């Protein structure tokens, strides 16, 4: 049974994705694997009060696409132009 993590956007939407997918983000990865055992790291819930739902959704899609790509399935990842700026900032924040 694969482990999951929950990502919460600023509006309160909850995205539940695989742990593996979330680890694509370095930030999330270090949050989940930091030494010291943060209390919720087993069943990770991370809140992003600065990331909107649309963006967070796109990011989750990106995680999965990234995993696919690294396994050999080289498709394209389409980004709507309006989202680009916010998406980049989020990506910066998440170190993705």
């Amino acid at each position, binding site marked *: 049974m694969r482990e999951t993590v929950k990502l919460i956007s600023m509006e309160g939407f909850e995205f539940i994705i695989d742990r593996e997918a979330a680890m694509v983000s*370095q*930030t999330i990865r*270090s*949050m989940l694997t*930091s*030494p*010291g055992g*943060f*209390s*919720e*790291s087993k069943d*990770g*819930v*991370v*809140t*992003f*009060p*600065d990331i909107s739902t649309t963006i967070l959704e796109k990011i989750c899609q990106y995680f999965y696409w990234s995993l696919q790509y690294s396994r050999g399935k080289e498709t394209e990842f389409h980004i709507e132009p309006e989202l680009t700026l916010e998406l980049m*900032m989020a990506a*910066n*924040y998440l*170190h993705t």
Partner: protein
Amino acid sequence: MEPKIIDFEQGWDYIETGITALKRHSESLPVPKFTLEQYCDLYTAVYKMCVQKSPYDFSSQLYQKCCETMEEYMNSTVLPALNEKLGDEYMLLRELVERWSNYKVLVRALSHIFFYLQRFFIVRESLPSIETVGMGYFRDLVYNKLQSKVREAVLALVDKEREGEDIDRKVTKRVLEFYIEIGMERYEQDFESFMLKDTASYYSRKASSWIQEDDSINDYIFKSEQCLQKEKERVSHYLHFSSEPKLVKVVEHELFVVHENQILEKTHAEKQIGLGPLAKIFKQHVEDTTINAKEQVLIRKVIELHEVYMVTECFQSHTLFHKDLKRAVAGSDALLATFCDRIILKKWGSEELSEEDIEKVVMFLAYISDEKDIFAEFYRKKLALRLLLNRGVSDDHERSILTKLKQQNRGQFTFKMERMINDLTLSRENQNSFKEYVAKPGIGLTVTVLTSGIWPSYKTFGINLPNEMVKCVEVFKEFYETKTKGRKLTWIHSLGTCHVNGKFDQKSIELIVSTHQAVVLLLFNTKDKLSYNDIQTQLNVGHEDLVWLLYSLSCGKYKILIKEPATETVSRTDVFEFNSKFTARMCRVKIPLPHVNDKKKVIEDVDKDRRYAIDATIVRIMKGKKALGLQQLVSECVQQLNQMFKPDIKTIKMRIEDLITRDYLERDRENPNMFRYLA
């Protein structure tokens, strides 16, 4: 929505609270719990403060503050805690270990939180990472101040353990891991070197007291063995594995080497000694001193070892030691011969080779009884070269060495060599008579006559001598006929030397060359340029040999001939020209011939000789016994040949078969393992 600008003070306060919580977390204090949420918040705060536009970009301030925080933590929390515990070894070490691991957690967490800084600011400004800075603080503020105390504490524990007390090994191990994490050189310089010194003094004390107390050498050996064992265990329990060889060496040194004289005395005094352990120690010592030793050094060391241990009678007849020493010297007979050659040449140049030195070397030979014939062969070749090329020898010395060799081994060993020296003396007398015979000058010829079979076989190749030389050869032949009839003379030009006067443009230089080389050079008296083919036809020399000769004259250090084309090898299409421009500093120049490595050839020769020896022995045995079984024949053979070398059973069997085909022996019809002698 405009993101709110975070003011630094505010921002930092917020972060600081977080960090305090983090500190408590790193110390594993239960309350309050540091949550993922808090982590996220902190990370976000840092992020925001860094991405704000200037002048609100607080990256550098954040970096500074972070470093300050770590430093301050060190000074306020870690150091005092440690200083408190200075009194007690255990407390100090435990505290150190704990603080160290907490600190590591803290630093790591901090670096994660400030990760955004790491990605951009730190890289941009090429600053050290937060982790590096953190470690640096620990090293400077804590380690440097306290490490000598820590080390003392650890060494005290080690000594206690040696005395039999039980110590907390886990703590010790963690302390040493800490040293290693700080840096391997730190471990080596600040800990290991002191540890080794401490060990040395500890064991030196122990050794002296034991030597005094103990009556029996057995006990001493036993105790020493135990100590060695314990030290090795110690390494596996908490020291770093790289310390093991150094530690073992130190202990051995203190326990054995330093007191070796006393040990030897004691062993001498006691007739009965437990040889097992002593042999092991000896072997270790031999290995330590001979490991990685280069040729000459190896021989020298082995001879020294031999002196130290063998000269005392008590070991001399003991096979255990022989074996170990032999093992160390395995396969070095060629080296030994070379070594003897070198000592003789070197020492006789400057100082007198003492009787003792000779004795030492010869006694040592007694130990290489496996392959004495290989040694003999090499020695003979070297001796021949020394005698023929007149390399600063004195007959008396050579004879005295041979006498000693003869004492140690049976007659056969030195028979040929003695004859060689005799040959030379005879030759010299001959030479004088020859000079008188040749009343008229004009032939500057010196001839040394060697008895074939006594001297090592030399390869030589025929060459068409120029007229001048042919005349000389004829004259000598006549002379020799007057002295002894019925003998055939074969000229070995490859060993001859010629002094040739070369009239070069700058000055006349005397060239010292071999006879063959001289013949080649004389060809250029009539013509300046000659092709390879010309030379070959005129001299009637084989291709390989000619290449070798021409190479030495045109491609070596001194280019007497110019070769066209000027390549590194001689080929059939080359053309050679007399190099009138040749000049050298001295008026006399030696043109060497490239050296041929004949080690393999010597071993081949020896193998051949051995086969003959085996044949002769088999026939001799069979002649005596008339009929013998295979096993007995083989064992008799081995016994008889053991003086010179250890015969291989397969080879013996092969020789038996060979003798059967040559009708010396026959197989018994009923029993295939029985042989009969055929008259």
